[in-house]
């Protein structure tokens, strides 16, 4: 069972990864966008977006989704940062998970953009990665974790 960081703790993953060959994914299995779109019942579903797949098609059913995975095939492709923020700004409340080849030095930024779970391709030292979540305690701009920019909070 794969491990991940969720809400600042290291936990085991209870979801099944995408099976691209599966026509009707079972409950508890992460769907590709195409599979998810074909799901008759989206209640409690899980869906994974790849770079180039904006979250817009999910917006009508966000409250039915339990897990939204945004995958980072390479850590330098930053589209997922905007996808996450967009989904949260449209009211998504469920687990928002980054997966793939992002690096621990990106964790604070990912967290600020609304991710609350992190499944790293290299999960050999998740304890060390946890410390990177605490790199910054103050921020200038508004984001998901702190909706008020510093200029509205300065004292």
């Amino acid at each position, binding site marked *: 069972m794969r491990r991940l960081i969720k809400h600042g703790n290291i936990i085991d993953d209870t979801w099944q990864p995408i099976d691209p060959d599966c026509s009707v994914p079972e409950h508890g299995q992460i769907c590709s966008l195409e599979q998810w779109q074909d799901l008759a019942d989206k209640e409690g579903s899980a869906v994974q977006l790849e770079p180039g797949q904006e979250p817009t098609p999910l917006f009508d059913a966000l409250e039915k989704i339990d897990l939204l995975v945004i995958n980072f095939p390479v850590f330098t492709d*930053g589209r997922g940062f905007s996808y996450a923020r967009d989904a949260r700004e449209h009211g998504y409340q469920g687990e928002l998970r980054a997966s793939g080849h992002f690096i621990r030095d990106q964790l604070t930024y990912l967290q600020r953009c609304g991710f609350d779970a992190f499944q790293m391709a290299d999960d050999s030292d998740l304890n060390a990665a946890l410390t990177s979540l605490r790199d910054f305690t103050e921020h200038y701009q508004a984001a998901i974790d702190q909706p008020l920019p510093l200029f509205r909070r300065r004292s």
Partner: protein
Amino acid sequence: MYVYDQHDQKIIDERVAQFRDQTTRFLAGEITDGEFLPLRLQNGLYLQRLAPMLRIAVPYGLMNSSQLRKLADISRTYDKGYVHISTRQNVQLNWPLLEEVPDILAELSTVQMHAIQTSGNCIRNTTTDQFAGVASDELEDPRPYCEIIRQWSTLHPEFAFLPRKFKIAVCGSTQDRAAIHYHDIGIELVADDHGEIGLKILVGGGLGRTPAIGSVICEWLDKKHLLTYLEAVLRVYNQHGRRDNKYKARIKILVKAMGIDAFREAVEQQWTALKDGPSTLTEEEIIRARSFFRDPSYLALDNTLAMSELEQDCTRDPIFANWIKRNTQDHRLPGYRIVTLSLKATGFAPGDITAEQLELLADLSDLYSFGEIRSTHQQNMVLGDVQVSALYALWQRLQVAGLATPNIGYLTDIICCPGGDYCSLANAKSLPIAEAIQTRFDDLDYIYDLGPLELNISGCMNACGHHHVGQIGILGVDKKGQEFYQICLGGNQAKDASIGKILGPSFKQKDVPEVIDRILSTYVTLRQEDESFLDTYRRVGIHPFKERAYAQAD
């Protein structure tokens, strides 16, 4: 100028600690080269040909005397005793050790400086008019808005891994001294029909491999929407900018591909979700930002008296008179002038300044200019608030220090990147070309007769030396391992912006000064009355220059 409070300081300090940890892990082999690359670039650190290069941010080109002294100190302790002023008004160290960079950053943080986002695919240092706040043609001081943008863009979590770098410039005057047409986003303070000042937004300008002039995306935007609008533009770019080819990844390519109208529509759509949200600027925040750029304690001076005394000094000393004419500008207040210090003396790399010169400048700024100094994108330095009565004393000190070369805006005031001598991206050297041209054209009278002329040199397509917008631009190219130089004519970075046209096949290094000579003499022959180089070029076109440049030796 802007002064940090405990919040600003905390952010900078936490960034230093983060980078120290990253460097330690890299040196311990825990971070790969590929992973460390964007991390170090976002802190201004390049691994160059001979040594690392560290680019220190100078937000909108403004520094105080203690910062200058700190830079001098750092350049002695960690480098070779000089620094380089870049074309983004930043300061570069050419020889620091990777291991010591965290210490340098810690030193910088003690004077409220940093190297955040001076490189990498993120939002870079916001630049502006080097005469902001003192220019006589200014509608409103752009620096408060630059500072607001600086804070918003600093460590922005969503836009740290953009398709490519992203540069913003702001201008608040009639004459554009910030080259806003050549930025990913250019912002101009403009009045609407009722006289209310708002923001005109340009998008998709840039230099590099495919130079482009920015298109107007918004004619007039209420200032309070500045950040939400920028956020909408960046979000469209982050999601849709090309990532498959780094040469097609700048926002200018996206704007061209979509067309400005479709791009605007996409931005407006994003903006509806963000508009009037928490990032909307409050009246208090604008007032707070402006409070840092209020007038210093100017004296009410009698301009007539000051000018008549200056006249006397000028009559007595024609060399001083010439410097006044070439290197000083009208200030918006009577009895003051703006002084530009040339970092373009022949024999020194354009934009380089030594630790001793930095310290002298710090002292002189304390004495004569309220302790503030500006760096310019033409790689010079400015004292913005000098009393006319102090000019002679100031000039004498500058003369001794080699900072009074009277060539501001003329042929030998060359913009030049560090080129192949330092930079690992370069295809060719640029510094020897600059020196060869400065050496060949050492007759000041001839240079003045040519009138204002911008000659810009880049060592590669990345165009750090802004060659496309020089009236004469020189670009180093590599031809089968040999260094050649392509010349373009007719570039212009002012409001009637234009991109230079390539003259023809490139030249050998040794032939460049001769070719420049031929181009200049063609202009001198063809010009009408007091027509500038650019005017003549625009009237006659490139052909007469081409013919002469490629003619066989007489």
